[in-house]
C-alpha cells in the first residue's frame, strides 16, 4: 500500500516459470535455511529436516492412488507428494468425473478451496487446483487439472456447490471457463472489466483504464 508500484522488483515470471510439480525440480544447494541449529533451542520439538538436498516432490504410491489409477487409468496424469501433502493431477476433461468419484467413493466430502495458478510458459498454462478434505479419514488431498488458454474445464459445482463462487473467482481472476457452471460471471471485479488480473502477464499496476474513466471519472486509479 505504502510502496509505490514504481519500485517494483522485476517480475518473477521468467525466473520462476517452472511447474512446481515437476519431480525433477531440484532445490537450491542450501535448502532449509532455517533449521534451529546450535545449542540455543534446548530441545527442538520435532526433528529438523535432513541437510542433504532432499527431493521434495516424490512420487506417491498409496492405496488411494492405486484405486484412483485403477478407476481412471491414464487420466491420472501424475501422483506426487510435496512436503507430505498428496497431489493428484488428472486429465482436464475428467476433472468432474474424478471429483464425483473422490466425493462419493473416497469420502472427500468437503471442497475446502478451488483456485488456479498461471504458468504462462507451459503449453497448458493453467493449473486448476482443488483442495479437498475428508471428515471420515481426516485427510487432505489436492487435485489438479492442467488447462490451456481458452480450454474449457468441467465445472465441479454439481459435485460440491461450494465450487460455484470459487469457480467464479477463478474465472474472474484468470479467465478460465468452467463448462456447466450455473452462472459464470465475474464476482469480485465489475462485470464489464476487461482483463484477468491474476494472470502473470497482467502487470501489478495494470488496470482497465476505459472502465476506470467511464465509471469513476478519473484518468487512473493508481
Amino acid at each position: 500500500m505504502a510502496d509505490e508500484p514504481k519500485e517494483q522488483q522485476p517480475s518473477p515470471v521468467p525466473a520462476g516459470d517452472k511447474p512446481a510439480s515437476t519431480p525433477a525440480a531440484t532445490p537450491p544447494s542450501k535448502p532449509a535455511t532455517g533449521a534451529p541449529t546450535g545449542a540455543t533451542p534446548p530441545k527442538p520439538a520435532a526433528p529438523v529436516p535432513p541437510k542433504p538436498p532432499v527431493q521434495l516432490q516424490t512420487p506417491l504410491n498409496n492405496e488411494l492412488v492405486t484405486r484412483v489409477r485403477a478407476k481412471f487409468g491414464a487420466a491420472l496424469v501424475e501422483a506426487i507428494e510435496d512436503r507430505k501433502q498428496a497431489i493428484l493431477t488428472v486429465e482436464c476433461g475428467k476433472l468432474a468425473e474424478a471429483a464425483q468419484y473422490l466425493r462419493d467413493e473416497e469420502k472427500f466430502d468437503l471442497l475446502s478451496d478451488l483456485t488456479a495458478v498461471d504458468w504462462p510458459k507451459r503449453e497448458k498454462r493453467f493449473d486448476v487446483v482443488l483442495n479437498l478434505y475428508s471428515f471420515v479419514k481426516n485427510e487432505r488431498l489436492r487435485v489438479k487439472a492442467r488447462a490451456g488458454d481458452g480450454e474449457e474445464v468441467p465445472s465441479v459445482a454439481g459435485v460440491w456447490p461450494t465450487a460455484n463462487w470459487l469457480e467464479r473467482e477463478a474465472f474472474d481472476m484468470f479467465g478460465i471457463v468452467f463448462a456447466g457452471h450455473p452462472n459464470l460471471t465475474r464476482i469480485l471485479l465489475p462485470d464489464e472489466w476487461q482483463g484477468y488480473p491474476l494472470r502473470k502477464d497482467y502487470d501489478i499496476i495494470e488496470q482497465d483504464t476505459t472502465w476506470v474513466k467511464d465509471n469513476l471519472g478519473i484518468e487512473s486509479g493508481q
Partner: protein
Amino acid sequence: MSTDTTTDARDKQQTLLGADELVLNMGPQHPSTHGVLRVKLKLDGERVIGSECMIGYLHRGVEKIAEHRSYQQFAPYVDRMDYVAAVSNGLGYCEAIEKLLMVEAPPRARVIRTILTELQRIASHLLWLGTHALDIGALTPLFYCFREREEILKIFEKYCGARLTTHAFRIGGLQYEAYDTLEKDVENFCKAFEPRIKDYEDLLTQNRIWLGRTKGIGILKAEDAIAMGATGPVLRASGVKWDIRKAMPYAAYDQYKFEIPVGTTGDTYDRYLVRMEEMRQSRLICLQAIENIPAGPILAKVGKVLKPPPGEVYHSIEAPKGELGYYVISDGTVQPYRVRIRPPSFVNLQAFDQMARGHLVADVVAIIGTLDIVLGEVDR
C-alpha cells in the same frame, strides 16, 4: 418467523391485487451489512424468495500483491483481510511459510502464539456478539462486549504496539519477547471474563425477543453446510464436530484440553450458543497456556532472505470465522510464485441465499450477522 398460516389468505389477496415480486437493494452502504456487502433481495411482500450477494467493493488484489513482495513483506498485508482477527491471519500465514521452508517455530513461540490467537478469537467473537445483538435490537450487549474487547486489545498493544493490524508474529516464531506481565494480564482478563460471559447470557440466552428473532431463523442442515463448504462455528452449529485445532493440531493446541461445542438444528440461535461456548473454551485454553510457557528462544533460525525450496504447501488454521487456508507456491526465489488465501467469510457467505429464502426482510439482518463475515476478507 413463519408465515405459513397466513400464506393461503395472502396468496388469494395477491392474486386479487395483482401484487408482483419486488427487488430490493440492500447495501453496500447499510449499517447491518457490516461493511460493503450489497444484497439484491427478491421479495414477495415481506418474504425473501431469492437473493444475490454482490461483493468485491473492498477488493484490493491481495493475492496479486503477494506475488510482488518478499515473504516477510507480505506478512502485514494478511492482517488487513480479516481486520478484526489480524492475529489469526498472521498465524496462518507464518505457519504456511514455515511449512514451505520446513522449519518449526520454537515451543515458546508456539505457546505465546496460541495465547494471543485465542485472545483474538474471544475479541472477534465479542465484536460479532455486540454487533449481531445490536442489529437485532439489543443495544446493551454492544457496550459490554466492547468493554471486554478493549482489555484484549490493550494486551495486544502492550505486546506488539498495535491494537488491530498487529503483525504480531514473524515467519519462524516471534519478533517480540513476551512482556513481563503478559501472563498476569491474561490471567486477570480470564478471571474477569468468566462472570462477564454470564452477563451476556443473562441478557440474551433466555430473552424472549432474542429467542423470537434467532430460533428457527436461517437454518442450515449439516449436509447442506458441508456441501456449501461452510466451516467454523457455522458448520459446528449444524452439528458437525470439526475443528482444525483438534483435527489437525497446529501451534500448541495439542497440549491443551478443550471441548468443541456443537449445535443441533443449525439455526441462528445455535450459532449464538456455539460461539458463546467457544469463548469459554478459548478462555480455558488461555488459562492452561499461561500456566506453563516454556523457556527458550522465540525465533527459529530462518535467515534474513527467505528462499523456500521450490514446491507448494496448503496450510489452514481454525480462524474465528472458520477455515482460513493459505496455498503458497514457491519457485525458489525471494517472492512467492502464488499465494492463494482461502477466506472463511467468502465461502460461508455463499450459504446466505439458502439460509435467507423464506424468511422476512428483518431476518436478513439476523442472518448476515450470524454468518459473522468481514468484508475485508470476503473481497481481499
